[in-house]
């Protein structure tokens, strides 16, 4: 290595000398003849904002200049007036203007087509028109939604991207499936590449706090993001090899614009509220229910064993636990940005404060972050840059089980006892704590410090030959604090329970790439090759204590607890080494070919299986550039067909899974601790990645000068060697073994339509997308046809997320006990019991044997529709999002329809079967606490939602004066929802691989109204 280190100073000196020489020679030019002087300004035709960096050229000459930060340019030439200027600027239509005299302002119309837009792809960029793969880009209004993390803004944003909110907790997470989930036990989340740094979004906690962990991506300020590009097909993702199978989301943060300094402040303030409450019984109705139950158990004691009629009358509505817990909560965001630069240095600096109070009391999330993106070109041949963000976020997380308890807590119970202390718990047999006491008194905090940055140097060796070295680091530290005081139910046994935990992770990345591009006649080549390495290590420490004399010290004085909990620490690490290569070739902008390969060596896999190879190939034909095409259709302005195939992998299984690691256990001898070790698993040297082979075919068509563009993609993904915890006989001493077994397929269609309906002073654009995905399990380990996981079944021929349960068949009516009683599953059937279908036809009903598939969580279609209008300074954006054909397991309802009188019940209990009301759908009240999972609790989860409406007004220039722009806006999030789902919200369900689509005790999302102001200087 030392020999090479000397090369750099030599090089720098050489480049520097060259620059100096150029500068000196510039000064030595002779004065030309002057015939005209022109000064002018180039502006955006719509916004009248100046356009820096536009090229202005005198037609018929080679004389051209660039506009400065104010959009200004000047010509002092030998050319006499009048002459013609040609103005070009990226994203605008080329203009030709004849100039007669010395001053001019030229407006440029924005380009109709996005074909010249640059799309960020793995390890590079490409013009949209040159793409061979399936890539969706998200930018503009959708990224301006008031959300805590950018992944929430991807809902409905692009075809083939299904986003499920897994919790409405402030800073809570989403689960994203790009072209369907394939892995059963491995991770299914896409790989995020943030300014070149690959991140797998794992919500890891130290295990100290309870409830939904904070989404790690919430540490990144969404307002700093310029664009999001979603790589979907294998041609696009194979360059990410063993991490590409779930799709790749590339995040590019904002950069400064040359020659134009802007200082802007943006502030928003919003109010969030619960969209809808769940219908549960009030005090009176609950008291009647409990009376009915007690009477059913012991009729001898009469019909008013719980409360007398008089007492019932005085109970009234009782406590509304939802009202007590939910609130309308503020949300605010403040951002100060300074950006700008010179031709050689650009900077973007921002500071951001975001605070979101949760709609459940005592929950919140706030983030303070800064970002610095600096790009510099210190020498002609060297470009360097750093992108750095540092943030601190604090969250008060809702303790787990709170939302369920709010629904189950009987309305006849009160929040406080008569003496002002908390009611401890549900007074009845089903014991759980008073949720309001839990919310108010439990401390459940997570604080995360994150530093994230990349730095690169890109050196031009020769024309077209670039060498790039990138280093990156991601440092994350999460501290968790937990305290349950002795005054609430959960704290009684432990007399105060304090916990502290810390999760620290550190990842570094080094990428070294060489790229070469060459245009030669009609041939155009881009070649990329490189080596990358990434290492990730993490540590967890947690400790705690119990039995405190006073709650005042909370988690801040563990040593004062009488009982110290056994501390815990662990550490793990993974390493990934990769070689990558890609060739893009096109002939005459008509025939495009791309081939890529990545070789990944991962520490996570078995000894004999460390390295994997992930190739891809793609071709596209830009039919519209064929000479014959011009005569075929005048309306079709662009036509391209694409096809690709390739192989990607998934390695999200965690570390050390191939090794027979040991875990520690303790036992007691003579009252003292002895530590033992036992194996956690059997070793599997052959453990390797999941492999996905994907085929994609697509067509892009532009009509009417590309005012209407349509993209259609069809794909087939087959994932094999699934990382599956294959069940093995217990006689082996183990329950399962992680093996590569089984396969899953995803097939789908994606449609994106983009239309400029009106252009001019009034503009109206529409972007719509729709996609369908069909998921199917093709095979499972060890020849198994299916396995049941709780309320779900994974079955060959069926999609993942299939609900497996019993089928209801009405209600047992009086006199039917002997004929139909055996279909109630009850040993002593009574009229009013629920009847079930005898699925296996054995003449009787049992919960275990009479189950079948009763729905699945996979949507038939997911939709996004965005309309943007603008007129003068007004801009209106209306965004709908939807999911059709998916089912939700309403887990809250399943518990609420037990009608045991031991906890509150669903509103449907008002219509329950009684001798006077022989209901055919709602069973009687009875003391049977065992829930039976049936199709009753599978609901249509389809919804169409007015996700975001925002209206902004930019003040006219004559009012703002020297201030460059002032914009005011209001927006509403989740304004209206059309759904038949009866739970809190159809959008918020579990997002796990095997059991998606369950809504059980999940923190609901809110409806938010926001107002904001943006001032730019």
């Amino acid at each position, binding site marked *: *290595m030392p020999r*090479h280190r000397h*090369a750099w100073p030599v090089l720098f000196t050489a480049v520097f000398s060259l620059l100096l020489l150029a500068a000196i020679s510039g000064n030595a030019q002779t004065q030309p003849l002057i015939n005209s002087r022109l000064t002018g300004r180039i502006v955006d035709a719509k916004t009248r904002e100046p356009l820096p960096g536009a090229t202005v050229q005198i037609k018929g000459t080679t004389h051209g200049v660039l506009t400065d930060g104010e959009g200004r340019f000047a010509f002092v030439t030998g050319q006499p007036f009048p002459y013609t200027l040609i103005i070009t600027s990226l994203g605008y239509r080329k203009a030709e203007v004849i100039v007669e005299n010395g001053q001019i302002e030229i407006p440029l119309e924005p380009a109709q087509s996005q074909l010249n837009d640059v799309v960020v792809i793995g390890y590079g960029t490409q013009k949209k028109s040159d793409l061979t793969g399936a890539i969706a880009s998200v930018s503009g209004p959708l990224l301006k939604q008031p959300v805590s993390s950018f992944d929430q803004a991807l809902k409905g944003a692009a075809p083939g991207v299904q986003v499920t909110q897994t919790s409405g907790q402030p800073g809570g997470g989403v689960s994203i499936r790009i072209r369907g989930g394939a892995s059963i036990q491995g991770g299914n989340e896409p790989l995020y590449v943030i300014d070149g740094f690959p991140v797998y979004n794992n919500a890891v906690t130290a295990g100290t706090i309870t409830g939904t962990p904070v989404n790690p991506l919430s540490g990144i300020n969404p307002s700093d993001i310029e664009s999001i590009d979603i790589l979907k097909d294998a041609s696009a993702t194979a360059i990410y090899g063993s991490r590409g199978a779930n799709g790749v989301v590339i995040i590019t943060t904002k950069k400064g614009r040359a020659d134009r300094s802007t200082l802007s402040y943006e502030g928003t303030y919003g109010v969030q509220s619960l969209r809808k409450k769940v219908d549960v019984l009030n005090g009176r109705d609950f008291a009647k229910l409990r009376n009915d139950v007690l009477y059913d158990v012991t009729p001898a004691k009469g019909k008013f064993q719980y409360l007398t009629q008089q007492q019932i009358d005085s109970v009234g509505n009782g406590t509304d636990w939802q009202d007590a817990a939910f609130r309308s909560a503020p949300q605010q965001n403040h951002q100060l940005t300074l950006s700008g630069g010179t031709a050689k240095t650009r900077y973007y600096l921002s500071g951001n404060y975001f605070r979101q109070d949760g709609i459940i009391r005592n929950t919140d999330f706030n983030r303070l972050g800064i970002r610095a993106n600096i790009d510099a070109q210190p020498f002609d041949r060297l470009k360097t840059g750093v992108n750095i963000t540092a943030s601190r976020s604090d969250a008060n997380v809702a303790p787990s089980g709170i939302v369920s308890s709010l629904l189950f807590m009987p309305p006849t119970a009160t929040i406080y006892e008569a003496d002002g202390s908390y009611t401890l718990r549900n007074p009845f*047999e089903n*014991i759980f704590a008073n949720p309001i006491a839990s919310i108010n008194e439990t401390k459940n905090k997570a604080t995360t410090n994150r530093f994230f940055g990349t730095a690169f140097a890109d050196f031009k*060796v020769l024309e077209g030959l670039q*060498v790039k070295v990138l280093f990156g680091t991601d440092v994350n530290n999460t501290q968790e604090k937990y305290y349950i005081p002795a005054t609430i139910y959960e704290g009684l*046994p432990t007399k105060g329970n304090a916990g502290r935990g810390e999760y620290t992770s550190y990842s570094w990345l*080094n990428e*070294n790439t*060489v790229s070469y591009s060459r245009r030669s006649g009609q041939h155009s080549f881009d070649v990329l*090759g*490189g*080596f990358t*390495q990434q290492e990730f290590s993490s540590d967890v420490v947690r400790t705690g204590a119990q039995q405190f004399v006073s709650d005042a010290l909370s988690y801040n004085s563990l040593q004062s607890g009488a*009982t110290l*909990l*056994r501390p815990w*620490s*662990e550490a*793990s690490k993974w*390493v990934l*080494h990769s070689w990558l290569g890609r060739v893009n070739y096109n002939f005459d902008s008509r025939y495009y070919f791309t081939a890529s390969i990545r070789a990944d*060596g991962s*520490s996570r896999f078995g000894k004999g299986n460390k390295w994997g190879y992930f190739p891809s190939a793609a071709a596209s034909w830009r039919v519209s550039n064929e000479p014959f095409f011009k005569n075929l259709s005048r309306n079709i302005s662009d036509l391209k067909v694409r096809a690709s195939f390739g192989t990607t992998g998934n390695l999200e299984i965690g*570390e*050390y899974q191939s*090794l*027979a*690691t*040991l875990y520690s*256990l*303790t*036992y*007691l*001898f*003579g*009252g*003292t*601790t*002895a*530590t*033992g*070790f*036992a*194996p956690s698993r059997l070793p599997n040297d052959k453990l390797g990645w999941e492999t996905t082979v994907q085929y994609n075919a697509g067509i892009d068509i532009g009509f009417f000068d590309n005012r209407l563009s349509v993209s259609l993609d069809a794909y087939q993904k087959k994932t094999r060697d699934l990382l599956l915890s294959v*069940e*093995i*006989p*217990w*006689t*082996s*001493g*183990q329950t399962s073994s992680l*093996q590569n077994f089984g396969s899953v397929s995803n097939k789908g269609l994606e449609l994106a339509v983009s239309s400029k309906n009106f252009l001019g002073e009034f503009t109206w654009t529409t972007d719509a997308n729709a996609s369908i995905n069909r998921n199917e399990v093709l095979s499972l380990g060890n020849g*198994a046809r299916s396995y049941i996981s709780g309320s779900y079944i994974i079955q060959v021929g069926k999609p993942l997320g299939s609900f497996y349960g019993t089928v209801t068949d009405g209600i047992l009516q009086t006199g039917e006990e002997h004929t139909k009683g055996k279909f109630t599953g009850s*040993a002593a059937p009574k009229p009013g019991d629920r009847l079930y279908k005898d699925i296996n036809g054995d003449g009787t009903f049992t919960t*275990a044997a009479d189950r079948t598939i009763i729905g699945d969580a996979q949507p038939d279609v997911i939709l996004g529709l965005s309309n943007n209008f603008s007129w003068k300074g007004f801009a209106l954006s209306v965004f709908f999002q939807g999911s059709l054909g998916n089912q939700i397991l309403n887990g809250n309802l399943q518990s609420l329809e037990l009608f045991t009188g031991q906890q509150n019940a669903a509103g449907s209990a008002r219509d329950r079967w009684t001798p006077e009301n022989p209901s055919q759908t709602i069973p009687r009240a009875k003391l049977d*606490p*065992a829930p039976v999972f049936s199709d009753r609790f599978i609901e249509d989860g389809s919804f169409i939602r007015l996700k975001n409406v925002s209206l902004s007004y930019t003040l006219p220039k004559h009012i703002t004066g020297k201030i460059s722009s002032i914009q005011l806006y209001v927006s509403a999030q989740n304004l209206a929802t059309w759904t038949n789902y009866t739970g809190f919200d159809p959008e918020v369900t579990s997002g796990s691989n095997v059991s998606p689509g369950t809504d059980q005790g999940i923190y609901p999302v809110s409806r938010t109204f926001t107002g904001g102001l943006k001032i730019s200087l």
Partner: protein
Amino acid sequence: MHITKRYILPVLLLGLSACSSLDEQPVSQLVTQEFYKDGAQADAAVVATYRKLYETGQSLYNSLFQIGVEMATDDYEAGPRARNAHVRAISGLTHDASNDRMEQLWRQSYDAINAANIAIDRIAVIPDGKITAVLQARLTNEAKFLRALHYFNLVRWFGDVPIVLHEPKDLSPEALYVTKSPAAAVYQQIITDLQAAENLPAPGVYGKNDIGRATSGAAKSLLAKVYLTKEDWANAAAKSKEVIDAKWYALFDDYADVFNTATKNGKEHIFSAQFLGNAGYQGNSLGSRSAPNEVPGINGDYADALHKQGKLYESFSSTDTRKAVTFITEMVSPVDGKTYTFEPHLHKYYDPAATGNQGQSSKNLPIIRYAEVLLIYAEAVNELQGPTAAAYEAIDEVRERAHITKLKDVAPALSAANFRDSVFQERRKELVYEYQRWFDLVRRGPDYYVRTLHAAGKTLAAPKHIRFPTPQRELNLNPNLKQDPLWINN
């Protein structure tokens, strides 16, 4: 070319100088191949095997015996707070081969057996110099004792079961698809292991920090029980006599001391599952499972209830000192100071030191204790020679300690059959909530079991219930396993 050499190669070479290796070196976990190398590590393997007596949650000797087995007797039922459908099924005798508590009996037993197998196999190959021969032999025999204990449970629950004596080498079908052995062969394996374990240190030899490990006394006592279960009366009598004559053990004067935390591992205790609350371990969860839930501040679970129709509570005479230790009918609330009375609740493992948090009860669970050895001896002698004086003497030692009249005084001339009934009745009362009832019922055959349960109102009891079905999961995953004939088409 020189450009390649000067600029590109260095960049790529940066890559080759990768600072990190792809080999996984877990820093916070040990790996099997690198473990089991010396005496301390050998001990760790055996300690782990002990812990598998109750590992986490509802585990073998920490309530699984109760909810997975004892519920299916005339003495117990799923209490009002036992919401789990599988537990209620066992209590109501509607369980099938997919019952998850019963599956756990199988899983956890084989898990423990596998831990013992690893210890036995790996300790055997630790080279001289790394472990003393004495320690090597002792640890191996402790593991064998534990392995025998688990096989003894398995053979009684499931009848014919696979005998697995070595850890699986890999994931191949040959390694994983074991076959069942006849119950007789399983018993032979149990006896072989226990005979080896008879060479363990005698009771009293272990140092203070090893109290609770298996001893030769434990091996011999368990062996006597194995012989008794096999109806090998001569060996049962001889082996229990050997334990009695060795005078290692004696009954506590006060029955309460059997369950007092202060008298843990005392003279009557032969082998117990060791519990200690609030010390980062699990406590004995029976403390909580039996405690009432309506008394403020007690926070009981009341998931293990007495089956009233079985009339166990009523079978105790009023002078019987065991009654007050075994049951409780009233408690004073530590919160409001009021006295609450209720139906009899099981009370043996209620730990006054863990008020309000009985899940942290520090009371040990006796697996075998001296009172039972006396009753084994009485039963075996009676079966061999009829109710001899020695048989009377043994049962009366137990009755006397309980302050009830000696059998010799009440019924001095019993027939062998009636004496047998007396011994079983004494076992029932002496060993309440010690995971013995189901074994004692099925030991007397299907007719007796069915008759007894029907008399107690559990009318779904059938002859097949003297065993548990082989878990359906195991049949599905291992083509070499067959269901117990008792459970086919039943």
